[in-house]
């Protein structure tokens, strides 16, 4: 069955360089540096990436960072808490706009 997302396409990620190599090289070099141990550990960065993968709803990223967090020694509880952080920010972002809705309501109401 044809779908918009094909799990095998994740393995072809580096192929984006076939159409535009200099920018792809810069991106992959930057990407590699971002995930290196720094002020944050590789483990912390992987959990952040897992949470963001859910927030941006990227199935490739979810697959990749589910395995990556496991390979960084995270357990299921930590991984699900990271997803809840993403969910809380997304739902919070929706709800805080409720204030704007309230403001506008008040503005146009008698």
């Amino acid at each position, binding site marked *: 069955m044809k779908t918009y997302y094909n799990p095998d396409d994740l*393995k072809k990620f580096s192929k984006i360089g076939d159409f535009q190599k200099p920018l792809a090289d810069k991106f992959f070099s930057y990407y590699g540096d971002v995930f290196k141990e720094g002020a944050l550990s590789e*483990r912390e960065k992987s959990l952040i990436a897992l949470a963001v993968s859910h927030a941006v709803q990227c199935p490739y990223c979810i697959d990749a960072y589910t395995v990556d967090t496991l*390979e960084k*020694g995270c357990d*299921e509880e930590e991984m699900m808490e990271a997803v809840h952080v993403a969910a809380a920010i997304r739902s919070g972002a929706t709800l805080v706009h409720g204030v704007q809705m309230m403001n506008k309501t008040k503005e146009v109401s008698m």
Partner: protein
Amino acid sequence: MKSLHKQKNRFSDVSYQLEVLNEGVENQGLPHFSDKLKEANLFPLKPTQLDIFQINMGKMCNQVCAHCHVDAGPDRKEIMTKETLQLCLGAIENSSVKTVDLTGGAPEMNPHFRWFVREAYKLGCKVIVRCNLTIIVANKKYHDLPEFYRENKVEIVSSLPHYSSKKTDSQRGDGVFDKSIKALKMLNEVGYGMPDTDLTLNLVYNPSGAFLPPSQEGLEKQFKRKLEKDFDIHFNSLFAITNIPISRYLEYLVASENYMGYMEKLVNSYNPMAAAGVMCRNTISVGWDGVLYDCDFNQMLELKVAVQERRQHVKNFQVDSLTKRSIRVNEHCFGCTAGSGSSCGGEIT
């Protein structure tokens, strides 16, 4: 749960396992392990000095772990005889071996286990026992094992896949985590893993699924923090070991449709530095029946050492011919060379 052998599962047949391992190369475009060694000028792989004499004392075990590369369990009756153990002592005495590494199954279930440990200790060897922990609490006759280990300065290496019961039990069986914690406390009580003793207690982590282990150093800190906080348990080092795609773990990979993904991951993570330091270069592995192998994994695939047929048994053990041999490699060897590498002592690089 029964062993694959008892179930007559097709994965208990080593020729089928080798067929599956070869399938990835023939039909899926994966490279041969030997080709990767050639790239690093490591083929044929040759031994260095023989340091470690690893003995599989039998396939009998009180546990049936989901990933077990030995396919061990209570229904396995293969046990090394005293005669073969005596031959092992002779081989150790006439070699440069410094470490005797006892594995199984549960090596403690071999009726000659204690006698053999004492004899090996008398020869001046460091004795390592790969203890599954639960054996200590399995039966009253094993309750004094911590004291016995202490008397013979045995180094303990024990599997504990995780500091949570859920993950440990999913891999090693229901209730294994609680029993393991109880056994670890008993080992700590006689001084194992404690800061002011020379009694070594190392733990082994291996992934509960189709993924690679984390960095050993970071994971060790995590295990130490958690086990001390939650259970007041102490240990020396944590070995992070990669699951090798053979036996029950191979069966799991194929059944869960993770086999090709896992093999690709191993191949893509191939590290020539790790290949140079693989454990088969300084180890000989002896099967329960006295047959010699390059490592425990080759043993389970029945890939005997590549020497003259009569020299393939411990009764005709000759260091010289073993030192000149070429180590037999196959696609499962990618498991020892992925990332930081993997051996019975954890990371290689």
